């Protein structure tokens, strides 16, 4: 029994230590990202790379979510004779919640793990040391560029995913009820208020930041050996997913406080 408790305390301790280290890593990002030298070219390369790697996946997933979500909700709405509310319901739930969180989770798997594996293998094969010796600050060149790129690209990817999800939903309505494109999208935009769009967009910046931060942290602190690289990539996904839900919860909580007043 005593051993059991000791174990739990160990786990909590190492978790808190990790949280501390990640905060320190984030602190270093904020301390250094404003000052030159700026690695602008590498930043653009990362933006392109992130978009290129996830655009297709985010698009297809968004589209299918839109289709499925509409098909699944139809019977219930029909029961209440509220099918005409479909566009509004889809719009609000996709924009507020489903679009951001699904896109972020996909990117955590696709981009976060990629960054973790890339930086991890660079660490293990001493490429990061080689950079440092070459007079380039590897934190600026590798970490800051990637965190900035994910922070900026995630909101764009979310918008792209949202649009395709709503389009998927429209296709269902168009096939089932012959709803016109114009009518459907009018309804979609009419229901939306600032309170739906602004907080939802703001939180996607935090999602992007979390994905870049954890991926870089895990890769940059990768343990020696090839097993370390796999672990870094895996841990990046697990930690990021957890963090995404925590951020989401906090964001919704804060939004509710603001708009109830």
């Amino acid at each position, binding site marked *: 029994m005593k051993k059991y408790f000791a174990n739990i305390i160990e786990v909590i301790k190492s978790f808190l230590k990790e949280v501390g280290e990640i905060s320190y890593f984030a602190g270093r990002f904020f301390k250094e990202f404003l000052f030159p030298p700026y690695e602008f070219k590498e930043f653009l390369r990362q933006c392109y790379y992130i978009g290129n790697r996830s655009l297709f996946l985010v698009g297809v997933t968004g589209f299918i979510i839109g289709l499925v979500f509409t098909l699944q909700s139809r019977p219930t709405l029909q029961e209440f004779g509220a099918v005409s509310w479909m566009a509004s319901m889809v719009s609000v739930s996709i924009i507020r919640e489903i679009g951001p969180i699904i896109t972020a989770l996909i990117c955590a798997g696709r981009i976060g793990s990629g960054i973790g594996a890339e930086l991890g293998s660079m660490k293990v094969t001493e490429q990061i040391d080689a*950079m440092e010796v070459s007079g*380039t600050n590897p934190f600026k060149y590798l970490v800051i560029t990637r965190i900035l790129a994910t922070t900026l690209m995630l909101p764009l990817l979310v918008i792209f995913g949202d649009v395709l999800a709503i389009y998927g939903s429209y296709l269902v309505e168009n096939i089932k009820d012959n709803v016109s494109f114009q009518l459907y999208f009018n309804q979609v935009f009419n229901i939306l208020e600032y309170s739906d769009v602004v907080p939802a967009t703001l939180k996607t910046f935090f999602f992007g930041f979390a994905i870049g931060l954890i991926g870089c942290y895990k890769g940059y602190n990768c343990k020696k050996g090839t097993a370390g690289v796999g672990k870094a990539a895996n841990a990046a996904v697990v930690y990021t997913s957890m963090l995404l839900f925590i951020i989401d919860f906090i964001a919704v909580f804060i939004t509710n406080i603001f708009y109830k007043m």
Partner: protein
Amino acid sequence: MTNDSSKAPIIVIKDLHKTFGTNKVLDGFNLVLNEGENLVVMGKSGSGKSVMIKCLIGLETPDSGTISVMNKEINTLEQVAIDELRTEIGFLFQGSALYDSMSVRENLEFPLRRHTKKFGKIKDTTPLVIEALESVGLANAINLMPNELSGGMKRRIALARTLILKPKIILYDEPTTGLDPITSKEIILLMKSIQEKYNTSSIIITHDVDCAKAIANRMILLIDGINYIEGTFEELNASNDPKVQAFFK
């Protein structure tokens, strides 16, 4: 002593200590490298050879002890001064450490982008890249990616990348480890020819006895965190100490 008194020391390490957690790696290590000399450091795997040369170039911070490179104390320098000093020190990493995502040309250009003090602003890097590649006999590999290169070629390109800054000192971390015997011999010959061409001083870390024999002016054995014994290859080879003998069997 085999120290040639006519040549000035270019690197001096005094009483270096480094501990990771409870793992005492370096425990009062001393070393002197004279100008133009090839100094071989041998030691078992995990004995702290890499840690020692990483301290030398400021990648690891020692717990105590002093390291002076070209009369500058590494531990007391500002970042800018360290970067400047690093242009005089080439470092060949154990696994070559080429940047996977960059072509050979970009790999060689990388050290030039920030180390601008030494050459001024360079408009066209191509002549420098080609010159460095020619020194290692691989001028035609300029547009290849690292994953298209064999182990021996990677080592040569990595060497070219350190040569591009025309350093006065080259640190080799196990330059022949992981290579077949023939390629190892080629790399050793290359190291010799580079020393003649660029007139460098070198510290070579290895546990390859053939490599040590071929290149060492002087040797140090790193055992139990200290420089256990120093001397020429022949002197150490003739030693009766079983700990020393173990390296030469």
